[in-house]
């Protein structure tokens, strides 16, 4: 019987070399041999082993011959945004609409490389490939993505939509994005991933971002993939002083999703908001891993993740908050609430705190429960039918997570999709 390592080798054997940085790709390939494949034996992957994904070896999709006609490049009605679109990890230039303005560099990552905008030694900010097998795969086979850089003080007038669409059977895509927001600048990004019925394989996406002093970066991240795609999405964000980073992660639909969000504050006075919602059905699996690292004093963070588990879905919430020795006067808050709607759903939660400073206020809470039957009855007693009553309660439950989306159009579209999916209409 093949070992996990053997299976992993076969899994990636058919992938084309990275179209990005050669040195990063080399480092990734080396690491692939050394790093353990994420199976049940790995502490960080024990609830989300990748063994089912490794069963079918994957291939790189050929260069796209244009954007599929039946898929809107901008799936969010009413959203006026710049856009960059990718099909299976590769940019489709004719379908993009990139900003041209002073102090704004917004292009594909491959163009940024060819224009020499990414210096040697600066290709990687997260060292993800040195820690995790999944990161090594990404580095070795990285493809294209968004390159966004704002100079000091620049406020982007419209959000940038990054739409990744995965098609085909057993296709692997490794989109890679880089965002740099200069001091006192402001950018909003919408990350939207989709896939049609029949799609399968792996999407291994990495976003690296630097938020400068006094700057603001907001991200609305929506996962809406049909088919049987394994999505591994990794965000790595560092914040300078007095900056604000906000991200909303909503998994509307996805066969198997693992989100890894890492935020590190290295400048005082910064603030981080991380909201997430997930409502898996069928036998879907959603895993949210977050790491909030407070390394300097006087910073705040607020994390709220809520989920409803239907049918026989499974999943994980693992939220780590680090407060390092010098991070005095940190105020960190984390809350994870889960409702198990049906028998057969299974969830694992691990809200972790590692505190090394004493003058801090940190709290976290985690609950697992059911819909309040009393409240349900109250609604019904006022003439609201069962189905509508449940819908109201779900909306109430995840309502506060959906607040604060960067783009109201995104929030509306997400609510609409969820309503459709879960029969709230």
């Amino acid at each position, binding site marked *: 019987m093949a070992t996990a390592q053997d299976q992993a080798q076969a899994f990636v054997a058919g992938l084309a070399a990275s179209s990005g940085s050669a040195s990063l790709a080399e480092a990734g390939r080396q690491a692939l041999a050394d790093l353990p494949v994420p199976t049940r034996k790995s502490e960080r992957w024990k*609830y989300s082993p990748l063994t089912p994904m490794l069963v079918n070896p994957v291939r790189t999709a050929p260069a796209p011959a244009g954007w599929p006609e039946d898929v809107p490049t901008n799936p969010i009605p009413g959203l006026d945004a710049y856009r960059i679109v990718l099909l299976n990890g590769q940019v489709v230039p004719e379908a993009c609409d990139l900003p041209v303005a002073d102090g704004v560099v917004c292009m594909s990552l491959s163009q940024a490389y060819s224009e020499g905008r990414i210096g040697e030694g600066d290709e990687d900010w997260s060292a993800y490939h040195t820690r995790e097998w999944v990161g090594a795969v990404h580095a070795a086979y990285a493809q294209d993505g968004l390159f966004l850089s704002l100079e000091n003080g620049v406020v982007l007038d419209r959000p940038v939509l990054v739409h990744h669409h995965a098609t085909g059977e057993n296709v692997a895509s490794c989109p890679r994005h880089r965002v740099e927001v200069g001091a006192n600048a402001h950018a909003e990004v919408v990350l939207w991933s989709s896939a049609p019925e029949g799609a399968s394989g792996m999407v291994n996406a990495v976003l690296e971002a630097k938020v400068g002093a006094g700057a603001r970066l907001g991200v609305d991240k929506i996962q809406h993939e049909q088919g049987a795609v394994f999505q591994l999405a990794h965000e790595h964000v560092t914040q300078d002083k007095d900056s604000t980073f906000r991200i909303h992660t909503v998994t509307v639909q996805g066969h198997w999703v693992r989100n890894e969000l890492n935020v590190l504050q290295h400048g005082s006075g910064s603030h981080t908001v991380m909201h997430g919602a997930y409502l898996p059905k069928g036998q879907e699996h959603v895993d949210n891993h977050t790491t909030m690292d407070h390394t300097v004093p006087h910073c705040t963070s607020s994390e709220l993740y809520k989920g409803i*588990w239907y049918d026989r879905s499974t999943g994980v919430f693992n939220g780590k908050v680090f*407060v390092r*020795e010098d991070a*005095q006067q940190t105020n960190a808050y984390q809350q994870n609430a*889960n409702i*198990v*709607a*049906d*028998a*057969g*759903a*299974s*969830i*694992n*939660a*691990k*809200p*972790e*705190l*590692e*505190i*090394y*400073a*004493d*003058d*801090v*206020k*940190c*709290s*976290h*809470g*985690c*609950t*697992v*429960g*059911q819909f309040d039957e009393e409240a349900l009855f109250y609604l019904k007693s006022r003439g609201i039918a069962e189905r509508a009553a449940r819908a109201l309660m779900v909306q109430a439950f995840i309502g506060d997570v959906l607040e604060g989306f960067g783009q109201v159009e995104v929030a509306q579209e997400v609510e609409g999709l969820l309503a459709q999916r879960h029969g709230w209409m």
Partner: protein
Amino acid sequence: MAYDGEDKILEEVTGKAYEFGFTTDIDSDKAPAGLNEDIIRLISAKKNEPGWLLEWRLKAFETWQAMVEPEWPHLQYEKPDFQAISYYAAPKQKKELASLDEVDPELRKTMDKLGISLEEQKRLSGVAVDFVMDSVSVATSFKDKLAELGIIFCSMSEAVQEHPELVQKYLGSVVPVRDNFYAALNSAVFTDGSFCYIPKGVKCPMELSTYFRINESGTGQFERTLVIADESSYVSYLEGCTAPQRDENQLHAAVVELIALDAAEIKYSTVQNWYPGDEKGKGGVFNFVTKRGICHTRSKISWTQVETGSAVTWKYPSCVLKGDDSVGEFYSVAVTNNMQQADTGTKMIHLGKRTRSTIISKGISAGKSQNSYRGLVQIMPNADHARNFSQCDSLLMTDRCGAHTFPYIETKNPTAQVEHEATTSKIGEDQIFYCLQRGIDEEQAISLIVNGYAKEVLNKLPMEFAVEAQKLLAISLEGSVG
């Protein structure tokens, strides 16, 4: 809140210890260092054990040899050399005495220094004491009184001889040999511990207690305790540990198994003050303990502990809530100071319906210590309407210590309700000043505030332990303000 001068941790116990009930000097009979099949046969032979138990030990040893010592990311310590430890040391037995009055005054002096005055206890609180020293049970009083009720409370060695059917039935039924590395080791080499059996419907009228003491240098201690509460019975069991100051690390790998049959209740309290190592972290006891209870229908097991010692602690008292409507509770105050490291917590496994568990963990970190809580709440598919509430708080006393929480919540049942909360705080300067302005000095103020913080847990302890626990908290936090 006056301390009456007993300073168990820091006092050097001089001279040799005497086995209770015997006079004259006692030499220790120590096995050569090392662990192999011969040593195990030696231990079993010295204790005159029946064949089935020797077989059980040998199989455990085989299992242990195939296991790997666990790695814990938050604990750093020099691994004990298992071949350098002597696994058996028993004071030689000479004569028998008829009553407590004939106890050697030297022996009594030793026990007084340890703060365990048997006379006192006998007179005031009626607590029966099973005094374990150097791997062999030394004192067992009140046996007769308990015997009237059918309660068996004796050393494990004695239980093997007198009640082998009970031991054979329950030994390893809650903590199987291959459960973990230290449990396997313990199963192979345990030399003694306590055995307790409460018959159906009997409420044990007094608190049963056991003291442990490691005396000889280089001896690990491997107690094995088994408490069986038959249907509808009740017992409150106290475990308190002391150890003298030593330079080299001492290993403590105990196993405690509790069985609460239908509608029974077991209350297990521990106040522990192993020598924690000096400010530089040298010396001190390594404490790796596996404690688990199994609850049958409508039964209840409560673990209450105050931990203030050990250089390194690895301990997760757990409850398997097998029977419907059973209840598991865990109340803990864990203090770490100087360079101590603690990785402790609990596991509540919900198997039966309508099972409930409560976890209240209060960590206090001072000095440069690291205090980690690791808990598991597991709701299995058939555990309909299971309920859990966990509150894990950390109090940080200095700016160089660490407090960490790693709760694992695994639910596989849709009707479960799990609630987990954790907060971190420090003692506020305003609170200290408030006390100062009322004439209370800083050390006392901290002691007040810390005890207030830990009150919820301390209230669960039997009264005499609560007093000892408060003293312990104060002693262990002396000089920790910073």
